């Protein structure tokens, strides 16, 4: 069945300028810091972090109030010739999550990369703040982009900011990890670009809303979709293209690992969803959806089992990221099924996005906690972390809360998300994914308790090399609490996440 055309408003809405600001504020920060020779980089970054948070809140409030997407037509040139920016409910929620996490990471990073006076900064601190701002700009551009090539440039911005973050510490392993990440990312970008070429050649536009009208389930669309998805899967580190992630995320400095695992890998995931649900809705056949979810299932099982075998805390958390990303891909078969009238009114849609948001908070908290632990005892070997719960109680408590979300135990956003996905499997009759989710939850429990067990064992606490400031621990706890707070969301399809979505129906071709 050919879906009806998406009819979205094609004109700039009243608060649409906020979308531009969300992308531009971090860019202004980067240019200012370069111009001032890096002298005030931390202050400029913190000011702009605050400004960006205000913009994200304003966008969320505007979408909530108006009950429709924010749209901005750049330069007053409408698509297909020009570029549009669109923020629907999902984008607004995504941008708010990104803003809160990046602000938290910014505050957390003041410990490692702060400058005491306005002196010329060191290499690492200067690079960190510029890269953080660039990542934020790229993420925002990905959340509101409505043009496939604009999204490609945003994706490259994200990649070029993430790769130097991996090798910021300069050790040999981190440089190797960064290079491997770069090569995978390059392959991903070029495959994505290839898909764009085919789509433009066939349909004459790259605007997502216009494409939803023009794309038909024909061979050229299939080839383009396959290429683009393959490229984006490489960037999202979905099994089996996940090889680059563990050393990269484990090798980055702690605030870098937090932003990489919590947010950067999700950027390309948003794009995959936009591609299949928005740009080419008629293409999401049963087979394609099952394939994507099967890879996700592989990621859950593979990542969780490997996490159990890790000796280093940061590597364990990185493998956990690989596993948790797998859950996100259940959105494809479960939301596009028959039980709901539109994909976004299904409970799986809400569950999938909630999984993304709660994982973002939980993983950020975990990496930040791991960073505090590593700073305190000078290493991150799990076996030698006995009794650290006594020395850093707040941090371990935060780690535990984050772990609840990963396991899917109440109260936590992760529990609600996984519960929603489980009920969707029942409604769709695709019980095999439920089995995978339950096994994944058990395995996650395994590796979380591996760490907590050591930490809470009642031996004498290890001597801390440096004392950890109380406010850093409280910050980590605050982020972990956000993951828990998401558990207060009602157990039904979210109204907010359907704002701005059209009333089309995609039939999963059986």
């Amino acid at each position, binding site marked *: 069945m050919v879906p009806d055309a998406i009819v979205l408003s094609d004109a700039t809405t009243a608060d649409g300028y906020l979308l531009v600001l969300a992308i531009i504020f971090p860019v202004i920060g980067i240019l200012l810091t370069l111009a001032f020779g890096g002298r005030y980089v931390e202050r400029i970054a913190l000011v702009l972090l605050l400004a960006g948070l205000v913009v994200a809140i304003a966008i969320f409030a505007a979408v909530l109030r108006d009950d429709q997407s924010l749209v901005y037509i750049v330069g007053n040139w409408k698509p297909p010739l020009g570029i549009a920016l669109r923020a629907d409910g999902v984008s607004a929620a995504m941008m708010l999550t990104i803003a809160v996490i990046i602000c938290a990471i910014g505050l957390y990073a003041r410990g490692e990369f702060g400058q005491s006076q306005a002196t010329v900064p060191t290499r690492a601190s200067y690079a960190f703040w510029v890269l953080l701002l660039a990542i934020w700009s790229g993420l925002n551009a990905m959340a509101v982009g409505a043009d496939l090539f604009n999204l490609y440039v945003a994706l490259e911005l994200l990649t070029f900011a993430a790769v130097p973050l991996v090798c910021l510490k300069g050790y040999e392993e981190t440089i190797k990890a960064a290079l491997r990440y*770069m090569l995978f990312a*390059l392959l991903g970008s070029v495959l994505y670009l290839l898909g764009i070429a085919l789509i*433009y050649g066939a349909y004459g536009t790259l605007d997502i809303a216009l494409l939803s009208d023009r794309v038909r389930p024909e061979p050229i669309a299939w080839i383009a979709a396959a290429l683009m998805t393959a490229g984006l899967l490489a960037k999202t580190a979905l099994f089996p293209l996940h090889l680059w992630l563990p050393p990269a995320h484990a090798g980055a400095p702690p605030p870098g690992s937090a932003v990489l695992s919590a947010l950067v890998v999700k950027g390309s995931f948003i794009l995959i969803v936009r591609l299949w649900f928005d740009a080419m809705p008629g293409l999401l056949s049963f087979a394609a959806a099952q394939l994507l979810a099967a890879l996700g299932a592989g990621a859950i099982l593979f990542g969780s089992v490997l996490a159990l075998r890790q000796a280093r805390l940061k590597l364990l958390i990185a493998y956990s990221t690989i596993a948790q990303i797998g859950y996100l891909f259940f959105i494809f078969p479960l939301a596009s099924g028959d039980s709901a009238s539109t994909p976004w009114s299904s409970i799986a849609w809400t569950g999938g996005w909630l999984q993304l948001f709660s994982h973002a908070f939980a993983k950020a908290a975990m990496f930040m906690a791991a960073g505090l632990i590593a700073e305190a005892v000078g290493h991150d070997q799990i076996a030698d972390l006995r009794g650290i719960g006594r020395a850093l109680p707040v941090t371990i408590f935060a780690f535990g809360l984050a772990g609840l979300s990963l396991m899917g135990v109440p109260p936590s956003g992760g529990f609600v998300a996984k519960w929603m996905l489980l009920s969707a499997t029942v409604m769709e009759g695709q019980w095999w994914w439920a089995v995978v989710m339950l096994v994944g939850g058990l395995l996650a429990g395994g590796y979380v308790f591996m760490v907590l067990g050591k930490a809470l064992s009642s031996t004498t606490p290890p001597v801390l090399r440096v004392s950890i400031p109380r406010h850093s621990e409280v910050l980590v706890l605050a982020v972990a609490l956000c993951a828990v707070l998401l558990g207060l969301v009602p157990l039904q399809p979210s109204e907010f996440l359907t704002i701005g979505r059209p009333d089309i129906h995609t039939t999963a071709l059986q």
Partner: protein
Amino acid sequence: MTSGVLLGYCGAVLVGLGLFGLVTNPEILRKILAFNVLGNGVFLLFGVIARRGAAAGLGADPVPQALVITGIVVAFSATAMAVGLLVRLNKVSGQTIMTSDDPTNSGK
């Protein structure tokens, strides 16, 4: 067969060649070289689409041309960053190939 279609097939083969080089060659600099060949193949496909879109007195559709110009600049930045990483890695460890070592063995 017009020149556009011929060059399109040429682009397709370039993509295949570049992909092969990127995946199989263990030397990192050769991988970067292959990535560039691959990228140029993709741009060539864009170019064929641009040529096909000749209309209104223009020899080729300007939109894909602009996309390719942007793409060439981005590909150059990517090459520069990859080369920088490679040279630094070589200075630190003396290697020039991508080894598939077990990440669990790496130290701090």
